[in-house]
Protein backbone atom coordinates (compact mmCIF):
# COMPACT_ATOMS: atom_id res chain seq x y z
CA UNK A 1 0.00 0.00 0.00
CA UNK A 2 1.19 3.48 -0.77
CA UNK A 3 2.17 5.75 2.08
CA UNK A 4 0.91 8.87 0.38
CA UNK A 5 -1.84 8.87 -2.21
CA UNK A 6 -2.83 11.94 -4.15
CA UNK A 7 -5.71 11.75 -6.62
CA UNK A 8 -6.69 14.56 -8.97
CA UNK A 9 -5.36 17.36 -6.80
CA UNK A 10 -6.21 20.86 -7.99
CA UNK A 11 -5.19 24.11 -6.31
CA UNK A 12 -6.55 27.44 -7.52
CA UNK A 13 -6.06 31.03 -6.47
CA UNK A 14 -8.68 33.58 -7.48
CA UNK A 15 -7.16 36.19 -9.80
CA UNK A 16 -9.29 38.92 -11.28
CA UNK A 17 -12.37 37.37 -12.86
CA UNK A 18 -11.01 33.88 -13.21
CA UNK A 19 -8.67 31.75 -11.22
CA UNK A 20 -4.99 30.97 -11.44
CA UNK A 21 -4.60 27.24 -11.58
CA UNK A 22 -1.41 26.53 -9.69
CA UNK A 23 -1.82 22.77 -9.56
CA UNK A 24 -3.93 21.06 -12.20
CA UNK A 25 -5.23 17.53 -11.86
CA UNK A 26 -2.14 16.05 -10.20
CA UNK A 27 -2.17 12.40 -9.17
CA UNK A 28 0.70 10.41 -7.72
CA UNK A 29 1.57 8.13 -4.91
CA UNK A 30 4.63 7.57 -2.78
CA UNK A 31 5.44 4.16 -1.35
CA UNK A 32 7.02 3.73 2.08
CA UNK A 33 10.78 4.21 1.87
CA UNK A 34 10.68 5.47 -1.70
CA UNK A 35 12.52 8.50 -3.04
CA UNK A 36 10.43 10.49 -5.49
CA UNK A 37 11.71 13.55 -7.31
CA UNK A 38 9.41 16.33 -8.49
CA UNK A 39 11.09 18.54 -11.08
CA UNK A 40 9.90 21.52 -13.02
CA UNK A 41 10.78 25.15 -13.56
CA UNK A 42 9.77 28.00 -11.30
CA UNK A 43 6.02 28.42 -11.13
CA UNK A 44 5.26 24.91 -12.29
CA UNK A 45 3.38 24.13 -9.09
CA UNK A 46 5.94 21.97 -7.28
CA UNK A 47 5.92 23.84 -4.01
CA UNK A 48 2.18 24.48 -3.99
CA UNK A 49 1.62 20.75 -4.45
CA UNK A 50 3.68 20.07 -1.33
CA UNK A 51 2.02 22.82 0.70
CA UNK A 52 -1.45 21.64 -0.23
CA UNK A 53 -0.61 18.12 0.95
CA UNK A 54 0.23 19.57 4.33
CA UNK A 55 -2.83 21.79 4.52
CA UNK A 56 -0.70 24.92 4.39
CA UNK A 57 -2.42 26.60 1.45
CA UNK A 58 -4.12 29.69 2.87
CA UNK A 59 -7.27 31.46 1.90
CA UNK A 60 -8.10 32.51 -0.73
CA UNK A 61 -6.42 29.46 -2.27
CA UNK A 62 -8.76 26.54 -2.95
CA UNK A 63 -7.61 22.94 -2.72
CA UNK A 64 -9.70 20.17 -4.24
CA UNK A 65 -8.83 16.53 -4.60
CA UNK A 66 -10.58 13.24 -5.24
CA UNK A 67 -8.27 11.54 -2.83
CA UNK A 68 -5.69 12.79 -0.39
CA UNK A 69 -4.57 10.04 1.94
CA UNK A 70 -1.63 9.34 4.18
CA UNK A 71 -1.05 5.77 5.39
CA UNK A 72 -4.57 4.88 4.33
CA UNK A 73 -6.22 7.72 6.28
CA UNK A 74 -8.14 10.33 4.38
CA UNK A 75 -6.67 13.75 5.07
CA UNK A 76 -9.69 15.63 3.75
CA UNK A 77 -12.34 14.23 6.07
CA UNK A 78 -10.07 14.27 9.11
CA UNK A 79 -10.68 16.83 11.85
CA UNK A 80 -8.34 19.82 11.70
CA UNK A 81 -6.77 19.08 15.10
CA UNK A 82 -6.16 15.43 14.30
CA UNK A 83 -4.71 16.31 10.94
CA UNK A 84 -2.27 18.77 12.46
CA UNK A 85 -1.04 16.15 14.89
CA UNK A 86 -0.66 13.58 12.15
CA UNK A 87 1.14 15.90 9.78
CA UNK A 88 3.63 17.39 12.19
CA UNK A 89 4.57 13.97 13.49
CA UNK A 90 4.49 11.72 10.47
CA UNK A 91 5.36 14.15 7.71
CA UNK A 92 8.36 16.43 7.99
CA UNK A 93 9.11 19.26 5.66
CA UNK A 94 12.27 21.13 4.80
CA UNK A 95 11.86 24.55 3.27
CA UNK A 96 13.76 26.38 0.57
CA UNK A 97 15.38 29.24 2.38
CA UNK A 98 17.46 28.17 5.36
CA UNK A 99 17.95 31.73 6.54
CA UNK A 100 14.25 32.32 7.23
CA UNK A 101 13.30 28.78 8.21
CA UNK A 102 14.29 29.15 11.84
CA UNK A 103 12.64 31.54 14.24
CA UNK A 104 15.23 34.29 14.85
CA UNK A 105 14.02 34.94 18.40
CA UNK A 106 14.84 31.56 19.89
CA UNK A 107 17.89 29.37 20.28
CA UNK A 108 18.40 26.20 18.30
CA UNK A 109 17.90 24.07 21.42
CA UNK A 110 14.66 25.83 22.28
CA UNK A 111 13.20 25.27 18.82
CA UNK A 112 14.27 21.64 18.64
CA UNK A 113 12.98 20.91 22.12
CA UNK A 114 9.69 22.58 21.29
CA UNK A 115 9.19 20.27 18.34
CA UNK A 116 10.13 17.27 20.46
CA UNK A 117 7.86 18.33 23.30
CA UNK A 118 4.91 18.69 20.97
CA UNK A 119 5.05 15.17 19.66
CA UNK A 120 7.00 13.10 22.16
CA UNK A 121 7.14 14.89 25.46
CA UNK A 122 9.69 13.83 28.04
CA UNK A 123 11.48 15.80 30.70
CA UNK A 124 13.56 18.87 29.93
CA UNK A 125 16.76 16.92 30.35
CA UNK A 126 15.60 14.12 28.05
CA UNK A 127 14.49 16.56 25.41
CA UNK A 128 17.79 18.40 25.52
CA UNK A 129 19.68 15.14 25.16
CA UNK A 130 17.47 14.23 22.23
CA UNK A 131 18.04 17.63 20.61
CA UNK A 132 21.77 17.14 20.95
CA UNK A 133 21.51 13.68 19.40
CA UNK A 134 19.54 15.14 16.49
CA UNK A 135 22.20 17.75 15.83
CA UNK A 136 24.80 14.99 15.80
CA UNK A 137 22.61 12.98 13.43
CA UNK A 138 22.62 15.80 10.93
CA UNK A 139 26.42 16.00 11.18
CA UNK A 140 26.74 19.36 12.84
CA UNK A 141 30.24 19.80 14.14
CA UNK A 142 30.61 20.86 17.76
CA UNK A 143 26.95 20.11 18.44
CA UNK A 144 27.04 20.91 22.19
CA UNK A 145 28.03 24.47 21.45
CA UNK A 146 25.55 24.91 18.62
CA UNK A 147 22.62 24.04 20.86
CA UNK A 148 22.58 27.41 22.55
CA UNK A 149 23.20 29.73 19.63
CA UNK A 150 20.62 31.83 17.82
CA UNK A 151 19.86 31.21 14.14
CA UNK A 152 21.68 34.33 12.95
CA UNK A 153 24.90 32.88 14.34
CA UNK A 154 24.66 29.93 11.97
CA UNK A 155 25.71 29.73 8.34
CA UNK A 156 23.19 28.85 5.64
CA UNK A 157 24.28 25.24 5.42
CA UNK A 158 24.24 24.91 9.18
CA UNK A 159 20.74 26.40 9.41
CA UNK A 160 19.59 23.96 6.78
CA UNK A 161 20.97 21.09 8.84
CA UNK A 162 19.11 22.36 11.89
CA UNK A 163 15.98 22.50 9.74
CA UNK A 164 16.53 18.88 8.78
CA UNK A 165 17.03 18.00 12.44
CA UNK A 166 13.72 19.64 13.30
CA UNK A 167 11.98 17.87 10.45
CA UNK A 168 13.20 14.45 11.53
CA UNK A 169 12.74 15.16 15.26
CA UNK A 170 9.54 13.17 15.37
CA UNK A 171 10.72 10.28 13.19
CA UNK A 172 8.45 11.08 10.27
CA UNK A 173 7.57 8.41 7.74
CA UNK A 174 7.61 10.93 4.94
CA UNK A 175 9.98 13.80 4.45
CA UNK A 176 9.20 16.50 1.92
CA UNK A 177 12.22 18.54 0.92
CA UNK A 178 11.34 21.66 -1.04
CA UNK A 179 14.47 22.66 -2.95
CA UNK A 180 16.72 21.78 -0.03
CA UNK A 181 19.88 22.61 -1.94
CA UNK A 182 18.87 25.68 -3.92
CA UNK A 183 20.22 28.25 -1.48
CA UNK A 184 23.47 26.46 -0.70
CA UNK A 185 26.99 26.41 -2.14
CA UNK A 186 27.71 23.64 -4.58
CA UNK A 187 29.99 21.75 -2.19
CA UNK A 188 27.47 22.04 0.62
CA UNK A 189 24.74 20.91 -1.77
CA UNK A 190 26.44 17.59 -2.26
CA UNK A 191 26.87 17.12 1.50
CA UNK A 192 23.24 18.02 2.05
CA UNK A 193 22.01 15.47 -0.46
CA UNK A 194 24.25 12.80 0.99
CA UNK A 195 22.89 13.62 4.43
CA UNK A 196 19.27 13.45 3.30
CA UNK A 197 19.84 10.14 1.58
CA UNK A 198 21.63 8.67 4.57
CA UNK A 199 18.80 9.69 6.88
CA UNK A 200 16.26 8.38 4.41
CA UNK A 201 17.96 4.98 4.30
CA UNK A 202 18.68 4.71 8.02
CA UNK A 203 15.16 5.62 9.03
CA UNK A 204 13.51 4.10 5.96
CA UNK A 205 11.57 7.29 5.40
CA UNK A 206 9.92 8.09 2.14
CA UNK A 207 11.46 11.20 0.61
CA UNK A 208 9.80 13.60 -1.80
CA UNK A 209 12.46 15.80 -3.28
CA UNK A 210 11.25 18.94 -4.99
CA UNK A 211 13.87 20.58 -7.15
CA UNK A 212 14.58 22.19 -10.46
CA UNK A 213 17.98 20.55 -10.59
CA UNK A 214 17.82 17.48 -12.78
CA UNK A 215 21.29 16.46 -11.69
CA UNK A 216 20.08 16.14 -8.11
CA UNK A 217 17.15 14.02 -9.18
CA UNK A 218 19.26 11.76 -11.33
CA UNK A 219 21.51 11.06 -8.38
CA UNK A 220 18.95 10.24 -5.75
CA UNK A 221 15.41 9.63 -6.97
CA UNK A 222 13.92 6.26 -7.86
CA UNK A 223 10.95 7.81 -9.58
CA UNK A 224 10.56 11.24 -11.13
CA UNK A 225 7.53 13.42 -11.76
CA UNK A 226 8.04 16.22 -14.28
CA UNK A 227 5.70 19.17 -13.80
CA UNK A 228 4.87 21.91 -16.26
CA UNK A 229 2.39 24.75 -15.66
CA UNK A 230 0.76 22.90 -12.78
CA UNK A 231 0.40 19.56 -14.51
CA UNK A 232 2.38 16.37 -14.35
CA UNK A 233 3.61 15.89 -17.91
CA UNK A 234 5.69 12.80 -17.33
CA UNK A 235 6.12 10.24 -14.61
CA UNK A 236 8.78 7.60 -14.95
CA UNK A 237 11.46 5.61 -13.20
CA UNK A 238 14.53 7.78 -12.88
CA UNK A 239 16.78 5.73 -15.17
CA UNK A 240 14.03 5.41 -17.76
CA UNK A 241 13.37 9.15 -17.76
CA UNK A 242 16.95 10.07 -18.42
CA UNK A 243 17.51 7.32 -21.01
CA UNK A 244 14.29 7.72 -22.97
CA UNK A 245 12.17 10.77 -22.19
CA UNK A 246 8.64 10.35 -23.51
CA UNK A 247 7.37 13.90 -23.30
CA UNK A 248 8.79 16.68 -25.49
CA UNK A 249 9.11 18.93 -22.42
CA UNK A 250 11.23 16.37 -20.59
CA UNK A 251 13.36 16.01 -23.64
CA UNK A 252 13.83 19.77 -23.83
CA UNK A 253 14.70 19.91 -20.12
CA UNK A 254 17.34 17.25 -20.55
CA UNK A 255 18.66 18.90 -23.67
CA UNK A 256 19.18 22.13 -21.75
CA UNK A 257 21.51 20.52 -19.21
CA UNK A 258 25.00 21.99 -19.45
CA UNK A 259 26.45 18.48 -19.38
CA UNK A 260 24.65 17.68 -22.62
CA UNK A 261 25.80 20.87 -24.29
CA UNK A 262 29.54 20.41 -24.03
CA UNK A 263 31.23 22.25 -26.89
CA UNK A 264 28.13 24.18 -27.90
CA UNK A 265 28.25 27.95 -27.89
CA UNK A 266 24.75 28.25 -26.48
CA UNK A 267 22.63 25.98 -24.28
CA UNK A 268 19.71 24.39 -26.02
CA UNK A 269 16.44 25.97 -24.90
CA UNK A 270 12.72 26.03 -25.64
CA UNK A 271 11.49 29.37 -27.01
CA UNK A 272 8.61 31.05 -25.19
CA UNK A 273 7.51 31.10 -21.58
CA UNK A 274 5.26 29.07 -19.29
CA UNK A 275 1.59 30.08 -19.79
CA UNK A 276 0.22 32.27 -17.00
CA UNK A 277 -3.28 32.71 -15.63
CA UNK A 278 -4.63 34.51 -18.68
CA UNK A 279 -2.95 32.79 -21.62
CA UNK A 280 -3.47 29.12 -20.88
CA UNK A 281 -3.89 27.45 -24.26
CA UNK A 282 -7.03 25.43 -24.96
CA UNK A 283 -5.02 22.44 -26.05
CA UNK A 284 -1.85 20.93 -24.63
CA UNK A 285 -0.21 23.43 -22.28
CA UNK A 286 3.11 22.98 -24.04
CA UNK A 287 1.64 23.40 -27.53
CA UNK A 288 2.82 27.03 -28.03
CA UNK A 289 6.42 25.97 -27.32
CA UNK A 290 6.54 22.36 -28.46
CA UNK A 291 8.79 21.66 -31.46
CA UNK A 292 6.63 18.65 -32.45
CA UNK A 293 3.26 20.38 -32.13
CA UNK A 294 0.42 19.22 -34.40
CA UNK A 295 -3.17 20.27 -35.04
CA UNK A 296 -4.58 17.87 -32.47
CA UNK A 297 -2.33 19.24 -29.72
CA UNK A 298 -3.74 22.72 -30.19
CA UNK A 299 -7.34 21.51 -30.26
CA UNK A 300 -7.61 19.45 -27.11
CA UNK A 301 -5.67 18.82 -23.93
CA UNK A 302 -4.10 15.35 -23.70
CA UNK A 303 -4.60 13.19 -20.60
CA UNK A 304 -1.77 11.12 -19.12
CA UNK A 305 -1.16 8.09 -21.31
CA UNK A 306 0.62 4.87 -20.42
CA UNK A 307 3.77 4.76 -22.49
CA UNK A 308 5.71 1.62 -21.78
CA UNK A 309 6.42 1.79 -18.07
CA UNK A 310 6.03 5.55 -17.91
CA UNK A 311 3.16 8.00 -17.99
CA UNK A 312 3.28 10.91 -20.42
CA UNK A 313 0.78 13.68 -21.09
CA UNK A 314 1.25 13.71 -24.85
CA UNK A 315 -0.64 12.49 -27.93
CA UNK A 316 2.61 11.82 -29.70
CA UNK A 317 5.00 10.47 -27.07
CA UNK A 318 8.59 10.25 -28.23
CA UNK A 319 9.74 6.86 -29.39
CA UNK A 320 6.24 5.36 -29.28
CA UNK A 321 3.07 5.07 -31.33
CA UNK A 322 0.73 8.10 -31.36
CA UNK A 323 -2.12 7.76 -28.87
CA UNK A 324 -5.68 7.45 -30.13
Amino acid at each position, binding site marked *: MSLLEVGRLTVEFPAGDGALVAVDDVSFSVAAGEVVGIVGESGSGKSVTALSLLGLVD*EPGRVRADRLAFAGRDLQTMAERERRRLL*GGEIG*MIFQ*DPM*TSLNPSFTVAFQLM*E*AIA*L*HEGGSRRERRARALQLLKDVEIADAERRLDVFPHQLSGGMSQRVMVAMAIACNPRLLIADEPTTALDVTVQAQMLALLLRLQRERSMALVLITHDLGVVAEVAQRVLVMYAGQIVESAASAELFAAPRHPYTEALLASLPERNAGNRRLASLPGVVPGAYDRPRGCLLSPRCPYVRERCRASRPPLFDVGTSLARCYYPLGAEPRP
Partner: protein
Amino acid sequence: MLGLVVLGLLVFCALFADVIAPYSPSEQFRDAALRPPSLAPVGGHVFILGTDPVGRDILSRLIHGTRLSLVIGIVAVGLSLTGGVVLGLVAGFWRGRVAEYVVMRLMDVMLALPSLLLAVAVVAVLGPGLANAMYAIAIVMLPHFVRLTRGAVLGELAKEYVQASRLAGAGTARLMFDTVLPNCAAPLIVQATLGFSSAILDAAALGFLGLGAQPPTPEWGSMLASALEFIQSAWWVVTLPGLAILVTVLAFNLTGDGLRDALDPRLKR
Protein backbone atom coordinates in the same frame (compact mmCIF):
# COMPACT_ATOMS: atom_id res chain seq x y z
CA MET B 1 23.45 57.68 26.49
CA LEU B 2 22.63 61.20 27.75
CA GLY B 3 18.96 60.35 27.35
CA LEU B 4 19.35 57.28 29.54
CA VAL B 5 21.18 59.24 32.27
CA VAL B 6 18.45 61.90 32.40
CA LEU B 7 15.85 59.17 32.32
CA GLY B 8 17.51 57.48 35.29
CA LEU B 9 17.47 60.77 37.20
CA LEU B 10 13.78 61.24 36.43
CA VAL B 11 12.92 57.75 37.58
CA PHE B 12 14.92 58.35 40.75
CA CYS B 13 13.00 61.60 41.38
CA ALA B 14 9.70 59.83 40.80
CA LEU B 15 10.50 56.92 43.10
CA PHE B 16 11.86 58.99 45.97
CA ALA B 17 9.81 62.17 45.52
CA ASP B 18 8.70 62.13 49.15
CA VAL B 19 12.30 62.00 50.37
CA ILE B 20 13.95 64.42 47.95
CA ALA B 21 11.32 67.12 47.80
CA PRO B 22 12.01 69.74 50.48
CA TYR B 23 8.34 70.42 51.15
CA SER B 24 4.95 68.92 50.50
CA PRO B 25 3.73 69.81 46.98
CA SER B 26 0.51 71.28 48.35
CA GLU B 27 1.83 73.11 51.42
CA GLN B 28 1.17 76.84 51.06
CA PHE B 29 3.59 79.38 52.55
CA ARG B 30 1.23 82.37 52.50
CA ASP B 31 3.87 84.95 53.43
CA ALA B 32 6.20 83.79 50.63
CA ALA B 33 3.97 83.90 47.53
CA LEU B 34 5.63 84.44 44.13
CA ARG B 35 9.22 84.44 45.42
CA PRO B 36 11.82 84.34 42.65
CA PRO B 37 14.38 81.49 42.64
CA SER B 38 17.06 82.17 45.25
CA LEU B 39 19.13 80.47 47.91
CA ALA B 40 18.34 83.08 50.52
CA PRO B 41 15.95 81.85 53.25
CA VAL B 42 12.56 83.52 53.52
CA GLY B 43 11.01 83.19 56.95
CA GLY B 44 13.24 80.21 57.72
CA HIS B 45 12.49 78.39 54.40
CA VAL B 46 14.63 78.13 51.28
CA PHE B 47 12.82 78.09 47.93
CA ILE B 48 15.53 77.21 45.40
CA LEU B 49 13.22 77.48 42.40
CA GLY B 50 10.91 80.06 43.91
CA THR B 51 7.24 79.77 44.82
CA ASP B 52 3.98 79.97 42.92
CA PRO B 53 1.12 82.52 43.40
CA VAL B 54 -0.20 80.74 46.49
CA GLY B 55 3.24 80.17 48.01
CA ARG B 56 3.87 76.49 47.15
CA ASP B 57 7.48 75.44 46.56
CA ILE B 58 7.96 74.98 42.81
CA LEU B 59 10.87 72.52 43.18
CA SER B 60 8.75 70.21 45.32
CA ARG B 61 5.89 70.41 42.89
CA LEU B 62 8.15 69.66 39.92
CA ILE B 63 9.63 66.62 41.69
CA HIS B 64 6.19 65.26 42.49
CA GLY B 65 5.11 66.09 38.96
CA THR B 66 7.79 63.72 37.66
CA ARG B 67 5.99 60.87 39.34
CA LEU B 68 2.72 61.83 37.65
CA SER B 69 4.31 62.24 34.25
CA LEU B 70 5.98 58.83 34.36
CA VAL B 71 2.78 57.17 35.54
CA ILE B 72 0.91 58.84 32.70
CA GLY B 73 3.54 57.58 30.26
CA ILE B 74 3.49 54.04 31.61
CA VAL B 75 -0.28 53.71 31.76
CA ALA B 76 -1.00 55.37 28.42
CA VAL B 77 1.74 53.52 26.55
CA GLY B 78 0.93 50.26 28.29
CA LEU B 79 -2.73 50.41 27.35
CA SER B 80 -2.01 51.58 23.85
CA LEU B 81 0.72 49.00 23.26
CA THR B 82 -1.40 46.10 24.48
CA GLY B 83 -4.41 47.10 22.43
CA GLY B 84 -2.30 47.99 19.42
CA VAL B 85 -0.42 44.70 19.42
CA VAL B 86 -3.57 42.63 19.64
CA LEU B 87 -5.37 44.58 16.92
CA GLY B 88 -2.24 44.63 14.75
CA LEU B 89 -1.80 40.87 15.07
CA VAL B 90 -5.44 40.33 14.17
CA ALA B 91 -5.16 42.62 11.15
CA GLY B 92 -1.95 40.92 10.04
CA PHE B 93 -3.14 37.36 10.49
CA TRP B 94 -6.55 37.89 8.94
CA ARG B 95 -5.21 39.78 6.00
CA GLY B 96 -7.78 40.45 3.32
CA ARG B 97 -10.67 39.46 5.58
CA VAL B 98 -13.31 41.63 7.16
CA ALA B 99 -11.36 41.86 10.42
CA GLU B 100 -8.45 43.58 8.72
CA TYR B 101 -10.62 46.07 6.89
CA VAL B 102 -12.58 47.01 9.99
CA VAL B 103 -9.46 47.48 12.12
CA MET B 104 -7.33 49.28 9.57
CA ARG B 105 -10.03 51.63 8.27
CA LEU B 106 -10.91 52.55 11.84
CA MET B 107 -7.24 53.34 12.45
CA ASP B 108 -7.12 55.41 9.25
CA VAL B 109 -10.06 57.46 10.51
CA MET B 110 -8.32 58.03 13.83
CA LEU B 111 -5.12 59.05 12.09
CA ALA B 112 -7.00 61.56 9.97
CA LEU B 113 -7.91 63.60 13.07
CA PRO B 114 -5.29 65.81 14.75
CA SER B 115 -4.15 63.89 17.81
CA LEU B 116 -4.81 66.62 20.37
CA LEU B 117 -8.25 67.31 18.95
CA LEU B 118 -9.11 63.65 19.21
CA ALA B 119 -7.80 63.55 22.78
CA VAL B 120 -9.89 66.60 23.68
CA ALA B 121 -12.94 64.97 22.14
CA VAL B 122 -12.38 61.77 24.11
CA VAL B 123 -11.92 63.69 27.36
CA ALA B 124 -15.05 65.69 26.57
CA VAL B 125 -16.94 62.41 26.41
CA LEU B 126 -15.36 60.79 29.45
CA GLY B 127 -15.14 63.93 31.57
CA PRO B 128 -11.98 65.79 32.66
CA GLY B 129 -9.54 64.13 35.05
CA LEU B 130 -6.12 62.55 35.08
CA ALA B 131 -7.32 58.96 34.54
CA ASN B 132 -9.57 59.91 31.64
CA ALA B 133 -6.75 61.94 30.11
CA MET B 134 -4.58 58.83 30.16
CA TYR B 135 -7.28 56.77 28.44
CA ALA B 136 -7.69 59.51 25.85
CA ILE B 137 -3.94 59.53 25.14
CA ALA B 138 -3.89 55.74 24.90
CA ILE B 139 -6.66 55.87 22.31
CA VAL B 140 -4.91 58.60 20.34
CA MET B 141 -1.67 56.60 20.15
CA LEU B 142 -3.38 53.34 19.25
CA PRO B 143 -3.21 53.60 15.42
CA HIS B 144 0.58 53.93 15.46
CA PHE B 145 1.01 50.69 17.36
CA VAL B 146 -1.59 48.88 15.27
CA ARG B 147 0.00 49.86 11.97
CA LEU B 148 3.50 49.14 13.17
CA THR B 149 2.53 45.71 14.49
CA ARG B 150 0.62 44.80 11.36
CA GLY B 151 3.52 45.80 9.14
CA ALA B 152 6.00 43.77 11.15
CA VAL B 153 3.63 40.80 11.28
CA LEU B 154 3.14 40.79 7.50
CA GLY B 155 6.92 40.81 7.05
CA GLU B 156 7.39 37.90 9.44
CA LEU B 157 4.48 35.85 8.08
CA ALA B 158 6.22 35.65 4.72
CA LYS B 159 9.13 33.78 6.31
CA GLU B 160 9.29 30.04 6.28
CA TYR B 161 9.72 29.46 9.98
CA VAL B 162 6.07 30.42 10.38
CA GLN B 163 5.07 27.65 8.00
CA ALA B 164 7.41 25.25 9.74
CA SER B 165 5.74 26.15 13.01
CA ARG B 166 2.29 25.60 11.54
CA LEU B 167 3.40 22.27 10.20
CA ALA B 168 4.64 21.29 13.65
CA GLY B 169 1.08 21.81 14.82
CA ALA B 170 1.00 25.35 16.19
CA GLY B 171 -2.48 26.91 16.29
CA THR B 172 -3.27 30.51 15.41
CA ALA B 173 -2.97 31.89 18.93
CA ARG B 174 0.38 30.22 19.44
CA LEU B 175 1.61 31.47 16.07
CA MET B 176 0.52 35.00 16.90
CA PHE B 177 1.98 35.39 20.36
CA ASP B 178 4.77 32.80 20.58
CA THR B 179 6.13 32.58 17.07
CA VAL B 180 5.62 35.92 15.38
CA LEU B 181 5.29 38.51 18.15
CA PRO B 182 8.81 38.17 19.60
CA ASN B 183 10.21 38.92 16.16
CA CYS B 184 8.19 42.11 15.91
CA ALA B 185 9.38 43.38 19.29
CA ALA B 186 12.23 45.64 18.18
CA PRO B 187 10.23 48.34 16.35
CA LEU B 188 7.53 48.16 19.02
CA ILE B 189 9.99 48.84 21.82
CA VAL B 190 11.31 51.86 19.97
CA GLN B 191 7.82 53.15 19.25
CA ALA B 192 6.80 52.62 22.88
CA THR B 193 9.75 54.69 24.11
CA LEU B 194 8.95 57.47 21.70
CA GLY B 195 5.29 57.12 22.64
CA PHE B 196 6.24 57.90 26.24
CA SER B 197 7.34 61.37 25.29
CA SER B 198 4.25 62.13 23.23
CA ALA B 199 2.07 60.79 26.04
CA ILE B 200 3.72 63.14 28.53
CA LEU B 201 3.46 66.03 26.11
CA ASP B 202 -0.21 65.32 25.39
CA ALA B 203 -0.97 64.94 29.07
CA ALA B 204 0.65 68.31 29.74
CA ALA B 205 -1.38 69.83 26.90
CA LEU B 206 -4.60 68.39 28.27
CA GLY B 207 -3.64 69.59 31.74
CA PHE B 208 -2.93 73.03 30.32
CA LEU B 209 -6.39 73.11 28.77
CA GLY B 210 -7.85 72.17 32.13
CA LEU B 211 -8.97 68.76 30.84
CA GLY B 212 -6.28 66.65 32.51
CA ALA B 213 -5.13 66.65 36.08
CA GLN B 214 -7.18 68.97 38.26
CA PRO B 215 -5.70 71.36 40.86
CA PRO B 216 -4.06 71.03 43.27
CA THR B 217 -2.41 68.00 41.59
CA PRO B 218 1.18 69.05 40.81
CA GLU B 219 0.98 68.08 37.15
CA TRP B 220 3.30 70.04 34.87
CA GLY B 221 0.69 71.02 32.32
CA SER B 222 -1.80 72.25 34.87
CA MET B 223 1.00 74.09 36.71
CA LEU B 224 1.61 75.99 33.48
CA ALA B 225 -2.06 76.74 33.06
CA SER B 226 -2.60 78.05 36.55
CA ALA B 227 0.40 80.40 36.28
CA LEU B 228 -0.44 81.78 32.86
CA GLU B 229 -1.47 85.23 34.12
CA PHE B 230 1.96 85.75 35.70
CA ILE B 231 3.95 85.12 32.55
CA GLN B 232 4.95 88.82 32.40
CA SER B 233 5.68 89.43 36.06
CA ALA B 234 7.05 86.12 37.40
CA TRP B 235 8.89 84.22 34.66
CA TRP B 236 9.88 81.27 36.87
CA VAL B 237 6.33 80.10 37.51
CA VAL B 238 5.79 79.36 33.83
CA THR B 239 9.29 78.63 32.60
CA LEU B 240 10.29 75.94 35.06
CA PRO B 241 7.43 73.46 34.46
CA GLY B 242 7.90 74.08 30.74
CA LEU B 243 11.58 73.23 31.07
CA ALA B 244 10.74 70.08 33.01
CA ILE B 245 8.48 68.94 30.18
CA LEU B 246 11.12 69.79 27.59
CA VAL B 247 13.89 67.90 29.36
CA THR B 248 11.74 64.84 29.96
CA VAL B 249 10.45 64.64 26.40
CA LEU B 250 13.95 65.17 25.06
CA ALA B 251 15.33 62.40 27.28
CA PHE B 252 12.72 59.94 26.03
CA ASN B 253 13.30 60.89 22.41
CA LEU B 254 17.06 60.49 22.74
CA THR B 255 16.58 57.11 24.40
CA GLY B 256 14.14 56.07 21.71
CA ASP B 257 16.57 57.01 18.96
CA GLY B 258 19.35 55.16 20.73
CA LEU B 259 17.19 52.07 21.07
CA ARG B 260 16.29 52.26 17.41
CA ASP B 261 19.94 52.30 16.47
CA ALA B 262 20.52 49.32 18.70
CA LEU B 263 17.48 47.27 17.73
CA ASP B 264 16.50 48.06 14.17
CA PRO B 265 18.18 45.49 11.93
CA ARG B 266 17.81 47.71 8.86
CA LEU B 267 20.14 50.29 10.38
CA LYS B 268 22.75 47.71 11.25
CA ARG B 269 25.68 47.99 8.87
